[in-house]
Structure formats: C-alpha cells, structure tokens
C-alpha cells in the first residue's frame, strides 16, 4: 500500500484549516474548566475541611470533575461539524471524492485526522485532571472519579463518529432517523449513576466506540452512489 506523503500532507492541511480554530477553542475551554475545577477544589477544601471533602467524595458520591461532563461531547460535535459541515455545503464532498485517492481512503484519512485531534485534546484534559487529582487526592479517589468520567470521553468520540455519519448523509429523512439512533446510542455514555458505577460497562462501551469509528463510510457511500 503506497502512501503518497505529499498528498496526505495536503489533505491534512485542508482538514487542519477547517478545524484549527474549533480545536483551539475547545482545548482552551477545557483547560479553563479544569483550572476552575482546581480552584474549586482548593477553595472547598479550605472551606469545609479536607476530611469532610474526602467524606463527600467517598461516601456521598461527590464528583469534583462533574463540570467536565458535556465538554467531550461538545468537542466531538464541534470538531465533527467543523470538519464535515463545510464538505456538505453545496455538496462539496464531491470535490473531496474527486481527488486522486480512493474515496473510502480519503474519507477515513479525514476521519483519522479529526479523531486524532480530538484524542489529543482529550489527552491534554485527562493529563491535567490526573495532575490536579494527584495533588489533592489519593489514587483511590482519583481512580473512581476517572472511571466516572471516562464514559464521557468515549461518548465524545462516539459523538464525533455519529455526527460525521449524519452530516454526510444526503437524504434529510435519514439524517433525522440516524440522529434518533445516535441519541439512543450516545445517551448510553451519559447515564446518571454513582461514582465509579460505570466500571462493568467500560469494556463494552469501548468496543462500541471503536466499532462506530467507521460508520461514516456508510453515508459517504450513499452520497457517492447518488442517493436522493
């Protein structure tokens, strides 16, 4: 399988132009939220006393990272929209499919780039989260909070994948139907539950997230075959 580096560099360049501001804004937003979380923890520990703070986390299910909840979802949605919406305006995806690459390859290439950018943003957020947690809390507390927030990130990835599917679908009726299925699917990642309650579901959710990474090919194919 030959990889034409100049061509892929150009394709990545185009994707980068589309998402760079969105990605930067979300990255910054997430960092701000995490800084806020840090300041909140610091303030609350001073206010209620560390022992009581830990008690709230350990025995009353308090999640100090709860402010993060919908950020991964919004980031997934935003980057998907930034990447794929410009391709759907005036059916511009025709230009992309006309490039001298196999259509499914170029689509997956774009998808990979978007996914990679999203993962990078998530990685930064999670690293900051770990650092903040390690300052104030023992591994047990960090671990159960981490288990609680991981589904949000997986949900964000799944949102990116499903949004791409929906944006590329040429027929409006099916866009709506896919959105309904996506809603049922994505809500699986955001159920209201106690700290660390998601533990047994994590492997299945991970598998589902990975599987959903290629669904964009379906609507891409339907577009190419002229579905009206």
């Amino acid at each position, binding site marked *: 399988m030959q990889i034409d580096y*100049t061509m892929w560099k150009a*394709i990545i360049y185009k994707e980068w132009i589309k998402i760079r501001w969105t990605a930067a804004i979300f990255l910054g937003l997430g960092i701000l939220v995490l800084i806020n979380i840090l300041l909140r923890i610091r303030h609350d520990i001073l206010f209620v006393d560390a022992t009581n703070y830990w008690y709230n986390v350990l025995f009353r299910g308090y999640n100090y990272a709860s402010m993060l909840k919908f950020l991964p979802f919004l980031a997934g949605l935003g980057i998907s929209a930034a990447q794929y919406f410009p391709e759907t305006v005036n059916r*511009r995806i*025709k230009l992309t499919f006309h*490039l*001298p*690459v196999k259509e499914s390859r170029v689509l997956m290439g774009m998808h990979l780039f978007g996914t990679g950018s999203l993962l990078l943003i998530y990685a930064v957020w999670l690293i900051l989260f770990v650092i903040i947690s390690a300052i104030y809390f023992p591994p047990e507390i960090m671990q159960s909070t981490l288990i609680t927030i991981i589904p949000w990130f997986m949900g964000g990835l799944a949102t990116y994948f499903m949004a791409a599917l929906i944006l590329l679908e040429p027929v409006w009726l099916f866009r709506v139907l896919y959105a309904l299925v996506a809603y049922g699917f994505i809500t699986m990642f955001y159920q209201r539950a106690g700290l660390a309650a998601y533990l047994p579901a994590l492997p299945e959710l991970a598998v589902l997230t990975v599987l959903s990474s290629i669904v964009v090919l379906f609507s891409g194919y339907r577009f190419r075959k*002229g579905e009206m």
Partner: protein
Amino acid sequence: MYAIECKNLTHYYGKKLVYENLNFTVEEGKILGLLGKNGAGKSTTINILNGFLHPTAGECLIYGENSQHLTPATKERIGFLIEGHIQYSFMNIHQIEKFYSGIYSRWNSEPYWELMSKLKVTPRQKISSMSCGQRSQVALGLILAQDPDLLILDDFSMGLDPGYRRLFIDYLRDYAKTNQKTIFLTSHIIQDMERLIDDVLIMDYNRILTQQPVNEFMKRFKQFVIRLKNPNADFPKNSLSLNIERTKDRVEFYTYGTLEELKQFLSEHAVEYVSVEQQPLTLEDAFIGLTGKY
C-alpha cells in the same frame, strides 16, 4: 481509446424517465458540448460521469475505466468543474493553491497565478466572500494548473457576466488545442459556445435531438422565414421541418432540408406566401430552433 464512451445509458429517478439508451463518445483532443434546457438530463450525465450517480442501466467509460470505479491514477487526469464553481471556499487563494499543489503531481502554478494577478482580491480573502465571477476565475485557474488530460465542466458559464464567459472560453480553447486536451462540457447557456466546442450533443426531455460536429450542424440546420399571404391560414403538418414557430403571418421553418425542397413542399400543399428567406443562425438560434421556445 476514447476519452469518454457512454453506452446505452439509461436512468430513471424513481418512475420518471430521464433518458434511455444514450450513446456518445468523445475522442481525445476534441471538445464536446452537451447542450440542453434545464432538466433535460445534463446534470444526470455529469453525475454519472463523475461516479456520483449509479445509472439504472448502461455505463460510462473514461479512458476505458468504468466511471463508477475510477482509479486514482485516472482521477488525476480528470479536471472537474462543479456547477456553480463550487470550491473549498473556506480557504483563500493561497491556501487552496497550496492544497492542490500537494495533491496533483503535474501541478503547474503559473497559469493559476497569472489569472489570480488579474483578480482584485486581498491576499487573505476567503473565496466564499468573492463574487461569482471571481470565484469562477479561481476555479478556472485551479483547473488549468492541474493540467488534466480531460476536463469535465458542468455549466461553467452559469452566473457569469459576458466578460467572464469570454475569458473562460478563450482560455479553455487555447489550453485544449495547444496541449491536445479533451473537454466535455454541459451548458444551457448557448451564447458563445460555437467559439469553443468541436462537437455538439443536443438533448431534449428524454431524447437526443442531434449529435454531430458543430460546424456540420450549423451548415445543415437552417432557418427559413416564410411570410404568408393569409395570417389566418393553417400551415400544413409535415416531416420536412424539425420545428415550426409561427406568429400570425410569420412562420419560422427549421429544417435540414434545402430551399428547393421547401419550395416544392409549399407548392405541393398550396401554401400561399409572400416571401421565403433563409436566415443566418447562431448556435443559440439553432438550439432554440431545434428545441423550441416553449
């Protein structure tokens, strides 16, 4: 090998027939214009050619490959202009050149920048904020810089001022004839087309009206204006004319036939007329003559 070869092309949208058994070829080095009114099936053909529509029956081959499964190598030889000069308009002219130069191995940016120098835009201006004519200029420059062997242009003249239209036509003809390039274009704007195309394919709803070199068409297809003595007299039906347009005593008679054949027909049917004259036709006049004014 033909650059383009479409065989028995048939397409239905649901139950509605677009056309059936459409056959045409485009030789390398030639310029074919597919002309027709809106809705006659031009976009359908373009979409099939570009692999964006699967025909109900039949196939199109580009350089011998089925248009639904073009290899990347063949796609590189094809330059595609989408109706409306659709481009990645979130980029500016520098970004878009940088992008495409990495994509196409034969990229020659000279003609692109030559055209861009004539464009009055700021360096950072996004293509989306340009006028229709400016955008078309960008699209033209990109396609020339790509140096494709085959150009497929979907309604490139739509929305363009006469000046831009001429610019396009002159550049394209020059490019194609200098470098032995092939062009397949569709249009419903017929003005100026005779300056560009070698062969013409005229479509009407569901059928092909004619397919021949444009020079021959212009020579053979004639318009005669008959002035009748009696404005209320019926004009007889006939197989000599392809189309007749009548206002009161003025009859426009479109035919491949000769003046003698017409005069013979008129006397055979005892039509009383004041005068019969052949009128010169532009391609646009001929097109309207063939397809009707509605």
